[in-house]
């Protein structure tokens, strides 16, 4: 009798264990073949996106990117004042206002009157800003010229300033894809001139007198932490 009970007990335990195994594997198989629709979302690696990336800001940047040669496989580079006016479809004040949140992220590179050469302070500041990339994808250079001189001359001068910045970046960055990262805009003296208030922004000549003329002999540079 004891033998029968023992054997019966063993069989019951084995049966229970085996049915358990069958059931656990069966439910896992069922879940595998019919996964639940609401799966936890996994974060995906992407460029940075910070608070100032408002829809309006991104819209303007995106237009600039596509129109100024950063879109894939385009040979044309840079945007002249007329382009910016057209593509940005935005007033001077609103254009400058968009860049206000970049005050600490970016810097203003200052030039001598009528010149496009970067001094040592400018090179150092530019290099510092370039290597503080973090999660940004695009680096913007917005070059300007002051009111002195005629429109054509200033347009050309701001273009040369933008190119100066680009040449310097190319030499320090050692990045074969730099063309796809840097957006060049030159505004001459005809669009989005800076007011004297911008003298309080970080500049390459912090110890020099700054006025509305000086602040527009410049190139504003900054990484932009927006997904575009």
């Amino acid at each position, binding site marked *: *009798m*004891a*033998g029968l*009970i*023992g*054997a*019966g*007990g*063993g*069989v019951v*335990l*084995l049966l*229970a*264990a*085996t049915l*358990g*195994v*069958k059931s*656990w*594997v*069966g*439910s*896992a*198989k069922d*879940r*595998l*073949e019919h*996964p639940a629709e609401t799966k936890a979302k*996994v*974060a*995906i*690696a*992407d*460029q*940075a996106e910070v608070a100032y990336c408002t829809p309006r800001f991104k819209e303007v940047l995106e237009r600039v990117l596509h129109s100024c040669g950063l879109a894939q496989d385009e040979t044309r580079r840079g945007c002249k004042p007329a382009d910016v006016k057209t593509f940005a479809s935005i007033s001077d004040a609103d254009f400058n206002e968009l860049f206000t949140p970049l005050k600490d992220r970016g810097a203003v590179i200052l030039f001598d009157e009528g010149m496009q050469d970067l001094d040592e302070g400018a090179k150092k500041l530019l290099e510092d800003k370039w*290597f503080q*990339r*973090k*999660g940004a994808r695009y680096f913007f250079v917005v070059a300007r010229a002051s009111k002195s001189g005629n429109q054509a001359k200033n347009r050309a001068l701001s273009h040369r300033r933008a190119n100066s910045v680009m040449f310097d970046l190319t030499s320090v960055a*050692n*990045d*074969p*894809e730099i063309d796809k990262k840097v957006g060049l805009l030159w505004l001459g003296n005809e669009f989005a001139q800076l007011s004297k208030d911008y003298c309080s922004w970080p500049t390459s000549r912090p110890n020099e007198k700054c006025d509305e003329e000086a602040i527009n002999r410049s190139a504003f540079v900054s990484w932009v*932490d927006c997904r575009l």
Partner: protein
Amino acid sequence: MSVVGCLLGLLFASYSTMDYAEHLDRGLHDIHCSFIPGKAPTSEAEACRAAMYSPYSALFRESMWGGVPISLFALGAFAFLGGFALYLWLARERAPKVAVGFFAGVGITPLLVSLLMLTISVSKLGHLCKTCVGIYISSFLLAVGAVSGLFTLKGGVRPALSVLFVVLWLMALGGTTLVPAAVYAASVPDQSPYLSKCGTLKQPKMTAGAPVKIRGSRAIQPVMFFEDPLCPTCRAFHERLLDEGVFERLDVDLLLFPLDSECNWMLESPIHPGACIVSKAVLCGGDRTRAVLEWAYDEQVYLTRAGKAGANVLRAAIKQKWGDELLKCVDDRKTDVQLNQHLHFASDNSIPVSTPQMFLGTKRVCDEDTDMGLRFALKNLAPEVLQ
């Protein structure tokens, strides 16, 4: 005592098997990891998870995804021994000597296996899984009960039984031990179709910067890893690759992906504080890169504590181990840029924000195929690394 030992053993082996089987759906689940039977599964079960993912937890892991967990053999054995213990308990003095002797002999085998697994846990895994310890204790109770039965044989007359019964019982024990494993093996789903469904690299080559190269001593298979030196899962993965004998067959392109918001903009707060600094130390390793990485894994608990204490504490730890030159490199802006390039490579490829990640060629190996299914996945995707 043996009956109690067998029932406890069955219970703990059932939890272990249940946890294993649950993961056959390729999801990540909480697991049972307690000395108290019936306690709910938990996500805080690193030791049990490490044991479950280890190469010692299952057999035939190349031919079957996850293999056949050894807890299944425990289930069958405890069921047989439980029945036999029940018989001896009921029969008491009427039990034949040969039955008592047989039970004493086979009753210690779970304990012997437990001692072997305990040695492996301590020497290879470095920690003890509570559910496994539950099985060890159950085996001990069973063995004590079985052997103590021998002391009841003195004096008294017991019915005689042919020794042939021993052969029959051994065959029954063998059969019952195999039944749950056979049922499991016959029911597991085929995971092959799922192996290549976890995406590919969009941009396999870095356009700026370069990955860290670590070449195994018998490297044959190019592979790309995204790792965080302060991530416990990465450490466990690295140890698994070493234990499996796979790492030496790999030609590794290592991308540092520290889960630390100090340098990684994809996080709002640091998951592993200090991981950016330790990652830079790995980048600065030069011809000692692998040594620096393995040091970071070995000293992960200490480095994590140092990371929480502050950057300077961590920098001091790096300087103490690797010297001033390496620390200078860690503080160099070029190293920041290099780490940033690794993170941008991750972002350009839209990989999940998690570590570790493994790519064979451009193909991403699913997370679940880097732990339980590692050998099966490698057998299917890169069989040469297992040779």
